[in-house]
């Protein structure tokens, strides 16, 4: 492993965090009622993160070529150190943030999970809330993507990191040169965030709430500045804007870019997007109908709004809420759990196994059944006009299996540490899928504060695994042990 090049690239990831901490310091200073109580915590954190980030640049002046192993270590360490330095503002501020709670909140922010330990969000200083939302913005794009933006397009570092950080499914689904992919992702991401901010302002949100919710919605995170999440605004227009941007944030950014550039929705006419939109539509109608006939919501308007909002919120892995899900019956929970596992499309900020892999799984199942009935026929799996290689099918099915194994293991650990089985399972599904809220007291208006330390740490690992799609972490660990043996 080339420690020099790793430390330089990881240092850059920390500088991005330091920059957003600096913005949070500005929010604290610009507070009309005077500096808020998080100013010192944010300033110290910003200074420390900046100094650690800049340090490798003093000695390592040139960016050298990296190996595959270096790439995995850069991704692993960039995320891990961002989590650790990102928890500093919380830990230094104090209040409900113990060390474990700070780590939980930081990981939840960077991984765009949106799970929180806060029972009273509104009591937290505005600057700290801004930092909390900023972690969504940084994590939504991916800490390594910021690094890719400044590396020259011909650099081998860029090629390797793009291949590792950007999901393989998204690269295959959207035919573009690697160096262009990163810029397209960034343009769409920043553009959507800005559009969401403007829309929220037009709907009557304050500028502070608008920027925080824009960060949260487009990154499909879920942190809100209000205790009752979006329910506190009592605004249909805000709910609709949130739904639109949650859907856009969980769709492939490459296709959105092409649609904008070509002024046409044709690029969106592909099997994955169709499956994703169709599943949301069908489940929204089922849930709304269920809410109406069971009397959970008496009016059709309320039933439709709640049904569609929560389906979109869960399937986009955002986790924002407009009502409490504590009283919802098991049938609704089952649908929600399926959506939590499936989530959005690859090439977006959404978590979960991704719609693309679900489609591959279903098509592979169909082929298997057909082969069982007609053994002599040769069947290919097609994605629109494109024929899927068997290797891709194998990778997708393997990933889904690995995903489910991780859920089982983390649920087991949570159960052994004392959390009840239902909450253990749903919390694991929720955190691995980067959704955030689970059910019951950990539901969409609840929090994870009451959970024990072991379970919190397990969920932290789940969130990290879910964000980087498991393999880079396994590869990094494997490398570390190989390195030790050597």
């Amino acid at each position, binding site marked *: 492993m080339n*420690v020099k090049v790793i430390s330089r690239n990881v240092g850059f990831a920390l500088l991005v965090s330091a920059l957003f901490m600096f913005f949070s310091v500005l929010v604290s200073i610009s507070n009309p009622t005077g500096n808020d109580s998080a100013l010192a915590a944010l300033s110290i954190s910003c200074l*420390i993160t900046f100094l650690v980030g800049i340090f490798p640049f003093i000695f390592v002046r040139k960016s050298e070529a990296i190996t595959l192993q270096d790439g995995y270590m850069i991704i692993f360490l960039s995320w891990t150190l961002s989590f650790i330095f990102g928890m500093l503002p919380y830990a230094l501020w104090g209040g409900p943030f113990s060390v474990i709670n700070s780590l939980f909140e930081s990981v939840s922010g960077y991984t765009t999970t949106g799970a929180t330990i806060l029972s009273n969000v509104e009591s937290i200083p505005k600057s700290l809330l801004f930092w909390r939302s900023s972690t969504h913005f940084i994590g939504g794009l991916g800490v390594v993507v910021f690094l890719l933006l*400044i590396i020259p397009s011909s650099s081998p570092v860029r090629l390797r990191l793009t291949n590792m950080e950007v999901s393989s499914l998204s690269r295959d689904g959207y035919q573009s040169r690697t160096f262009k992919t990163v810029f397209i992702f960034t343009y769409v991401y920043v553009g959507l965030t800005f559009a969401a901010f403007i829309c929220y302002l037009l709907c009557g949100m304050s500028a502070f709430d608008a920027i925080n919710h824009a960060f949260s919605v487009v990154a499909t995170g879920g942190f809100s500045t209000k205790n009752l999440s979006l329910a506190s605004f009592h605004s249909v227009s805000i709910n609709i804007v949130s739904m639109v941007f949650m859907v856009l944030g969980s769709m492939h950014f490459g296709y959105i870019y092409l649609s904008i550039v070509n002024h046409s929705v044709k690029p969106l006419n592909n099997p994955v997007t169709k499956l994703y939109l169709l599943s949301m539509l069908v489940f929204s109608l089922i849930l709304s109908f269920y809410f109406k006939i069971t009397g959970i919501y008496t009016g059709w308007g309320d039933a439709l709004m709640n049904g569609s909002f929560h389906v979109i919120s869960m399937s986009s892995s955002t986790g924002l809420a407009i009502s409490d899900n504590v009283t919802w019956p098991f049938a609704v929970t089952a649908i929600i759990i399926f959506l939590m596992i499936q989530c959005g499309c690859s090439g977006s900020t959404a978590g979960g196994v991704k719609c693309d892999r679900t489609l591959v799984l279903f098509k592979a199942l169909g082929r298997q059944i057909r082969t069982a009935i007609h053994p002599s026929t040769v069947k290919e799996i097609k994605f629109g006009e494109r024929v899927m290689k068997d290797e891709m099918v194998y990778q997708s099915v393997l990933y889904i299996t690995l995903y489910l194994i991780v859920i089982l293991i983390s649920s087991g650990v949570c159960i052994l540490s004392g959390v009840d089985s239902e909450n253990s399972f749903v919390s694991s599904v929720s955190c691995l899928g980067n959704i955030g809220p689970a059910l019951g007291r950990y539901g969409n208006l609840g929090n994870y504060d009451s959970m024990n330390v072991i379970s919190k740490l397990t969920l932290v690992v789940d969130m990290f695994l879910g964000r980087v799609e498991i393999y880079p972490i396994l590869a990094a660990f494997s490398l570390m042990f190989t390195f030790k043996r050597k």
Partner: protein
Amino acid sequence: MFRKFYSKLNSYKLSMKMKLTLSLCVIAIVLLVSSVISIMEYSRMSHYVSDLIADNINSINVAERLANASNDYNLEILKVIGDTAKTALPKFKQEEFMEHCDSLKKSLTSDKMINLADSVVYSYSAYMLTSLELKNVMLSDFIDTRAWYFNRLQPRYNRLRSDIDVLNTAINNELKKNSATFERGFYRSIIPGAVAVAVGLLLILLLLFFIMVYYVNPIYKMIAGLKDNIAFGKKYNYTFDGDDQLTELNEGISEITDDNQMLRKRLQDIRENEKKEVPKD
């Protein structure tokens, strides 16, 4: 734009002196931050603890005084009731009692505690109002003084005592809670300093690594290369990654050794030629 800025920043060369100064300055700043945080946290915690303990002890003392004052007054009333010769009514330091109540209410912070203090004041008012009946009871031929005491005054006295006890218990609980908060606060106050120290150590380790990689190891290898060159005439061809004076020195050594090797070769050739030319003469 960012990329241009980044490449411009990268092209800027730092001298060896500058690199070492900058890196040590970074470590010094981290240590300075760590010490400033420690001093700030220490002063904050010491103020917090002394204020907290003073408030709690003051509240406990005041509650005790309230209990003693009401107890003394009640004993005086009992004496009057027991001794038929005594006709003078006992005096109660009402203003002092109310002052104590006010100071207690001021020192209490939580709404729950203030409500308990209000209950004491309310019970005290009820008790005092009933005790004022004593004069009429003593003058009356129809009312039994002892019966009046046990039926009318004692329940109010018991209520007052119980309210004072409840308040006292609550203040003691608050003290316990505050000491637990203090322990947590103490642990919290260590965190910033610990973080800064940990970061300082991390930077020192990184500095050590960089000094080893960029300065110590190259110097060792340069010496080894020079020794090989001097001892065995091996070509000095050591290169390493860097852009500062050490790289320049290495390039200089490389040139000098090359020149030296060339000169040695020429000298050797001249000597060999000389040897060849000697027999002719």
